Every structure is written in C-alpha cells, then in structure tokens.
C-alpha cells in the first residue's frame, strides 16, 4: 500500500520503512520555532527538571511576535525571559525587535523552512509551513519543552484528507476564499486529528504567499497539519532564500485517504465567515452589508506582502469610510520594509489607515486594535471566536485582504469586485516582476 507525503515524512524521521495512521511514532525534529508566550513556560519546566541545555541550538528559531513591542509590564517580562534564554543557549537564529515577525511568516520568509522537514512550534498555526511540503504542527508548552530537550516528539500518525483544488481563481477570489469555503463545508472539526493535503491545478495559480494562507487555517478545521506538494513555485521560493539541501517527498498514487474532496475553485466567489466560527463562511452575495467599526489587515494568515499589495490595489485613491477605522499590520519586518519601499504605506496612510509594526497584535485580542463591546470587525485573521479580538460581545467577520480593503472604503461588508478594476492589476504586475517570479498568475 502506498503512503501519503505526511506518512513518508514521519516514517523517514522515525527511522521506519513505513507507518500507518494511528501508529504512535517518536519523530526527530528539524526545526523548533519559539515565541514569547508559550516558550517561557516550557523553559521553566525544563529548569525545574534540571535540564539546562537544549538538544541543538542550531535547530531552533526564536522571535518575539505576540506583543511586540512589549504591550505591558508582564509581556515585557516574557520577552525578556525569551531573550535571556536564547542568549544563554547560544541560539543564533534570533529575530530581535526591529527584525522580528510573526513566527509562522518569518520562518519560511527567512529561509529556515525546507521541504521534507518536521517542524513544531508552541502555536496552533504552525501548520502554515506545510505549504512547503513539510510536516508542521502546533503543540503546547510541555511538548515544546520535551522537544527542546530531546529533539524528538511523539506523534500519532494522522489520517489524511485529500483536497483537490481545480481551476483558476476567478476575479476577486483569493486563497483565503478557498480555505474559508473548505472550512464552511467540513466544519471546525471536519479535519480533527487529520492532515489536510492539497493538490490540483489551482496550485499553479497560487504563489507561496497565497498557499501559506490555506495551510495556515488547517487548525480552523481541527486539522493536525496542512500540506502541499513541492512544485516549481515552492522550489523557487526556497532557492531564493537558502541553498541548504533538502529531501522531497510525494504521496504515492495508491496512498489511502480518509476522505477526498474535489473543489471547483473557478466557481467560487469571495467568502465571508460570519461571527463567531471560522466555519460560518458564506459567499459574499449572501452576506448582509453589515456596518463595520474596524477593519484589520494582517496576521500570519494574511499579513504577507502579496496581501498588502492586494489590499493597497483596492484602496488606492480611496478613503477609509467615516465611522470606520482600518489597521494594517504587516506580518514581518521584511514585509513592512518591502511595503514601504513599494509605496504601499503611502496608499494606506492617504486612505486613513493606521500602520503598525509586525505583531500578532489584535489578532488574539492583545493590543493594536482590541475591540470593545458590540463592536464589529472585518478581519483578515483566522479566528472569529467569541472574545478572540477583545470583548466577548464584539463580532468578528473573516475575509480576504481584498474584501477587507473594500469594506474599509464603504464602512459596510463589501464585495471587493466593486473596487477591483483592471488597473489594480498594474500594481500587482509591477510587484510581481519586482519579486522576480513571473511563472505564476495572480488571482485578480
């Protein structure tokens, strides 16, 4: 019987010929990503046990990201503990404030993620990195502690669900719409304990940046991981960042899947997930034009440069509606710099947006746009649970950066196609050539 890409990676990392779903394996880890919220408790656990050295500092990447720069005294303490620990351990892959970024975005962006890797982080959106053909999953602090000490972790080999994505993306439809559509079909526990594997002709229309949005939200369907096969687009992305060697794994033709779904991407429309579950997605035509108090463009889901380019292309020449505020939060410092160089900040600031440094910020109700009672927010983040972005009585809608930008302009939930004119493609085309990748198409 054949194996899936996930099974092959786990087998290779636990020195086995083959593994089957349900089996518990102890897998070697290639990369451990650490941020300031879940790492300090792990470090404390290790200290209590008298374990004072990590297994291999070169396999660990550290960045503060949740409350950067420190939002209050307590978060300052966490960041300080993280900083001291990485110094004492001699971890060199460290992104200090000023070079920092949301961990799931900065790790691949800075060339630390290679196809075939096993990756963990004390954060549920670690699944993001699976878009580069890795097994990447989120864990808690105890797992993190065990991993930091031993370089290994136990995993139950997950069953896989195969999503075949077919066709080009229609005008105004982006990868965020694809994943919101999928979650609306299978529910917030539709992929519980399972690996969500993607393939199909739509992938060639998706840049790596767009793909990360899809694997990012695996956890929103309860998934253990999200994974995509490595193709030319993925290899170009990796080779532009690192020359480290890696191994490629592909699912066998006769691999077994718990379920298979085929999605006709060319028939999709922009999606909005209504409060308060990511699975409440509807086509935008079915969503009432609710008045929106705050638009939030950012996060590890949609804070990459392509997202900001798309939002800027919609917002160009417009103003944020009276009675609405718009907050733009680049996912990493590199994204921030690129956006500034490309003039995107001029567009956003002319429109009346607030532009933040890279941070998780209000995505998890930390700061930089926390919501008050009864306030409404349309956000490009990944979760709209009760209380996620602030007061439990606030209402959060999830959508793509294009929909977010269109909504900021009108102040009510708005179909981005009302604003996406052909000329908006120019900005993207320019950015595309600036990025040196012309072998893919944009979904606009």
């Amino acid at each position, binding site marked *: 019987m054949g194996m899936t890409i996930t099974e092959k990676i786990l087998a290779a990392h636990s020195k086995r010929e083959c593994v089957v779903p349900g089996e*518990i394996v102890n897998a070697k880890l290639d990369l451990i990503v650490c941020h300031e*919220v*879940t790492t*300090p*408790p792990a470090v*404390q*656990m*290790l200290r209590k*046990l*008298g*374990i*004072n*050295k990590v*297994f291999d500092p070169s396999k660990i990447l550290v960045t503060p990201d*949740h*409350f950067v720069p420190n*939002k*209050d005294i*307590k*978060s300052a*303490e*966490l960041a300080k503990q993280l900083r001291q620990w990485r110094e004492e351990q001699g971890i060199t892959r460290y992104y200090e404030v000023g070079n920092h970024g949301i961990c799931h975005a900065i790790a691949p962006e800075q060339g630390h993620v290679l196809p075939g890797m096993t990756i963990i982080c*004390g*954060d*549920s959106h670690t699944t993001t990195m699976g878009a580069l053909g890795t097994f990447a999953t*989120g*864990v*808690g*602090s*105890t*797992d993190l*502690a*065990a991993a930091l*000490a*031993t370089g290994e972790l*136990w995993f139950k080999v997950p069953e896989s669900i195969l999503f075949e994505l077919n066709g080009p993306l229609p005008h105004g439809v982006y990868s965020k719409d694809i994943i919101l559509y999928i979650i609306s079909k299978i529910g*917030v*526990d539709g992929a*519980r*304990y399972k690996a969500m594997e993607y393939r199909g002709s739509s992938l060639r229309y998706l840049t790596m940046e767009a793909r990360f949005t899809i694997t990012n939200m695996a*956890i929103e369907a*309860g998934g*253990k991981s999200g994974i995509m096969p490595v193709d030319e687009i993925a290899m170009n992305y990796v080779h532009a960042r690192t020359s480290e060697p890696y191994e490629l794994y592909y699912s066998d033709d006769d691999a077994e899947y718990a379920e298979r779904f085929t999605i006709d991407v060319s028939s999709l429309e922009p999606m909005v997930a209504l409060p308060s*579950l990511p699975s409440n997605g509807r086509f935008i035509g079915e969503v009432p034009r609710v008045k929106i108090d705050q638009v939030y463009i950012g996060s590890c889901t949609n804070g990459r440069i392509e997202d900001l380019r798309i939002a800027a292309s919609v917002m160009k020449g417009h103003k944020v509606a009276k009675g609405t505020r718009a907050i733009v939060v680049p996912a990493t410092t590199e994204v921030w710099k690129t956006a500034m160089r490309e003039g995107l900040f001029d567009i956003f600031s002319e429109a009346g947006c607030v532009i933040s440094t890279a941070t998780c910020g209000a995505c*998890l*109700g*930390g700061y930089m746009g926390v919501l008050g009672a009864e306030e409404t927010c349309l956000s490009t983040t990944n*979760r709209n*649970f*009760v*209380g*996620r972005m602030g007061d*439990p009585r606030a209402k959060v809608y999830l959508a793509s950066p294009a929909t977010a930008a269109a909504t900021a302009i009108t102040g009510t939930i708005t179909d981005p196609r009302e604003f996406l004119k052909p000329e908006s493609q120019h900005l993207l085309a320019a950015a595309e050539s600036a990025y040196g990748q012309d072998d893919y198409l944009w979904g606009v």
Partner: protein
Amino acid sequence: MPELPTKLKGYAHVYERAHINTDEIIPARYLNVHEEAELAKHAMEDIDVDFVKRVQPGDFVIAGDDFGCGSSREHAVWALRGAGVRAVIANSFARIFFRNAINNGFLVIECPGAVQSINTGDELEIDLAAGRLRNLTKGTESSFVPLSDFARELITAGGLLPYIQKAHGAVES
C-alpha cells in the same frame, strides 16, 4: 504524581455547547502570565464568569463536541487544573487540547452523549479502569472507551516530561 486512582468522585459543571475554544477557557488577555494560580482565577471566564466561584477541587467539567478547539495554549489546561477541575468529560476533544492534557497528566475522557444526561451539580463517579461513568444523583450510568495505553502511561507518569525522564533515564543536562 501517584498512580491513577481507579475511581474518582466529584460534582459536574455542564457546558453543552460544541466547540468551546481555548480563548473562552482562558482568554488571551491573561496570557501575559503562566502561573497556574493566576490563570485559575480566569478559568472559563468568557463562557461563564461565575465558574471559578462555584468550582470545587475535584469537580468535573462536562462538555459537548470538540472541547478545547482553537489556540494551542496549554494555559487552558493549567487554568482548569488550577481552578481545581479533576477531569473534563466531553463528547470529543480538539487535538492539541487533548494532547496538552495528557502531556500534563490531566484527565480527559471521551464519553459521547454524557453531556445530555448530566446536569450541573450532579455528583459523578468515574471508574477509570472499567471505563464507566456513574451519575450518583440520577442513578444512571454510561460507558466510555478507556484511555489508550500510551495516554495512560503518560498520565500515570505525571505527564510527558516525567515520562521521558523515566523512559530515557535522566535527559541530558
């Protein structure tokens, strides 16, 4: 931590809703600390502000489908344990919460349907070895699939870290 007792007794706190997420169990506004006693003050706050006032050491939380979904924060397990909760019994659990729980030696029991027959305040008895859940107040009984051997080993060891220490001898220090 001592061996798992085979029988546990306590009172139920029932939350029927599916998909109770870790943001509700311990809101992110409290994530700037990780001391169990501090987190415990806010356990379940966004779903029931009075929970911490009512819960007694040894009590059980009873829930519907997919308990603990969302963020991977282990703080959710610590907050519940710190508040005195002895076990969570749910129709099903989200993956990371389940994993965090057993990694902490915290009891999580999958007992589909239990939530329908239990009311808040009912006294329950859990027989871990036999996989039986008795509602002493109502005189009803249901069964659950006992923990897997691996989960049981972890919980008995007191969690993942002590388990690793035991399995590998002292981890390199």
